[in-house]
């Protein structure tokens, strides 16, 4: 039986929260946008292309959560070569994971915006580009969360150390 330290366990928890919470946010965001999109394509099926692109935008936070989880797993030796992970280091990974996980909740706001922009596109197809710009504004904070995760892991020498 393989023995895992508590540190590795905490890191795994961090990775799980990073992906899990971000997945909730992204899932809800995509769902909200999709509900609006269904109404648009019921009126005009030709709008499916722009609707699909707008609906996909809140997925970004899920991707960031996934990326965060991978980086934590790499740093903690869950993926790749095994490393010694102390409890404080495990807690650091946990903190990093919670950052991206919670940052992923911004996808809900992004989904609401995407849904509203689908309505704009239904009336004025030429507003698609502007709609995309409005929609991605929420992502800024998810990016900050990802950046903090990277800074935490690099600063604590979990990555690149």
């Amino acid at each position, binding site marked *: 039986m393989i023995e895992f330290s508590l540190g590795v366990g905490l890191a795994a928890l961090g990775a799980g929260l990073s992906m899990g919470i971000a997945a909730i946010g992204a899932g809800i965001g995509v769902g909200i946008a999709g509900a609006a999109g269904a109404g648009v394509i019921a009126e005009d099926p030709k709008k499916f292309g722009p609707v699909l692109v707008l609906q996909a935008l809140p997925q970004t936070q899920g991707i960031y959560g996934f990326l965060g989880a991978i980086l934590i797993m790499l740093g903690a030796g869950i993926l790749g070569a095994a490393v010694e992970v102390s409890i404080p280091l495990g807690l650091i990974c946990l903190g990093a994971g919670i950052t991206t996980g919670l940052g992923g909740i911004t996808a809900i706001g992004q989904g609401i915006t995407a849904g509203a922009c689908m309505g704009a596109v239904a009336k004025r197809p030429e507003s698609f580009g502007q709609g995309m710009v409005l929609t991605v504004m929420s*992502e800024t904070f998810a990016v900050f969360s990802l950046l903090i995760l990277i800074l935490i892991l690099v600063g604590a020498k979990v990555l690149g150390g």
Partner: protein
Amino acid sequence: MFQPVRMNKLQALVLDEEKNLVIKKLHELGAVQISDCRDKLSHPDWGDLLESPTPSPLLRKITTAHMSINKWLDLFQTVAPEPTDSFFRFLFNPSKPKKIPMEEIDGENLLERVESILQKVVHSTQHPSEQLEKVREDISSLQSVQQSILKLEQIEIDLAYIEETAITSVYLGTTLTKNIEIITTELSELTEQTFLLEHTPLSPTESLLIIVCLNQHASSVSNFLRRIGFERIETSGYTGTPGEVLRSIQNRIDELHEEKRQLKDQVVASSDKFKESLLALRELLQIERERADVHGNLALSGPLCMIEGWVPHKVTRKVTQEIESITGGLSVIKVAESHNPDEKIPILFDNPPFFRHFEILTRLYSPPKYNEIDPTILLSITFLFFFAIMVTDVLYGVITLILGILMLRGGGKYSKTIKDFGVILSAGGSATIITGMATGGWFGNLAIDFMGITSLKNLMIIDPMVDVLTFLIFAVIVGIVHLDIGIILGIINNIKNREIKKAFTENLWLILVQILFALFYLKTHVPSGTGTVFIINILIGLIALATLFLLIVGHKGMSFFALTGAVGDTLSYARLMALGLCTAGIALTVNILAKMSAGVPLIGILFLSLILVIGHIFNWVIQIMGAFVHGIRLHYVEFFGRFYSGGGDEFIPFALKREVTELKT
């Protein structure tokens, strides 16, 4: 390439009596977008010279004929619908569209032909179609009565007795069972206890009621029953028990169905005889209508007519020659490029044949403005690259390539959209095969680890599941390069538009930051205390100052957000690695599950096959969709944000479109 087609503004003065010939010729050429001259009527330079256009005298007749044809075609479509291809048939093996050969006929001759055909259609179809409609209504009405009388099935009274007499009124109908007591009480009062009420349950909640009262109480009883929700069943005119009446109604419905079938056959015969002609004539009328409609865009000046529009530079000479030829030289034509920055010049894409199929992706965002860079070529190359990185599996690439080819050879023969996506998928699939080889993806690790074809490792450059950090750094570097291309294009665009300050202060600072990082990196690899280090330090200082200067001048109070925005945009490209990893990760999971299921005795091989097939198809579908959407998103948000605004109006030529007919030669 990289710019829309050069457009010339065309202004032609022709004799009013020849304008129809000119319009017809321009329609056939399909090379001119006709502008609306009416806004010139209020212009100080033109207002005194021009008059409002007169509508085409044929327009009303064309519209009426068009509506009549549509009415008959709608009827024929209801009675004998044209079979349509299923979704998959439409994509991969569509039915060849049928073209009806027609001689060239227009104007009054066309209207006479239409009138003649319509007379024949009316003669053979009007009566049976009216009868058919009546029969349908009769059937519907009888079915409604049938539903009502079905509720009376259990009573054995001759319905002839349930009629008003000189003294009494009869109410037969249904109500909620719980209301019977209330009805009894209320009727007692209303009729001074002079009424008869019998009821029988139809269901746990509904009962059949028959009420008899004196005519003097009929009005108040009727109002009350309406308020209480009593649903009256009309039986007047029917004799016999409900069972007998139902049988006779059913017989009548059967007779009507037979009559309907015969009438329908007559209409179908009419459809077989006239439908093709009507479709062809409708298209010719549509062509005439477009020509008649354009009269409203012209302007008159005495005996002259002014036609204004836009024509691509490369066909301008041909168009002017045709106008001169058709008017026998009696025309004045002016052609010039417009230098008015406020004028909205329509744009026509000008890309090599392969890249034309990617214009759909540029259009999805917004066509470029006239003097803007057309990003289609760059978008197509980098989109395919991103697509390939995110899918990164040889066999998924092969499936995508096959799908693309099937679409090209199938639906792509008749549909431009399917053809475009066929090309995009074929190219994407081909690129994915290359990246798949580089990352060792053959249905994930199926070929290399599970089937033991280790020679494929020789083609590998990187294993994404092992060298995750390297893959991430690669994705970010790709992003930085992509953004730099966008910044450089933005600078070029701004210089072309003479916005010099904007060219250098908007985004150049980001390139300087990268040079700074490069210098810092270089400094760590040069022996300290040397002259080189000194020079590097000077350069770092100068470039840092320049960066700060450009950032503050270009963005002022928003400088911080410009910085964070740039960081965000760069990190956004990490999704290339994330999605590439997802493809490999899910494929690995599918293979592990398949291997585990192979251990089941007897049917293990069946489970293995099912899991592999379903799992990899599922992974292929979601990765293709994800790669497409996220690839295009990186272009629309991060890339286009550096240099592209779009908002152009596409060139829509005044062109003849034949979908159903072809000219008889």
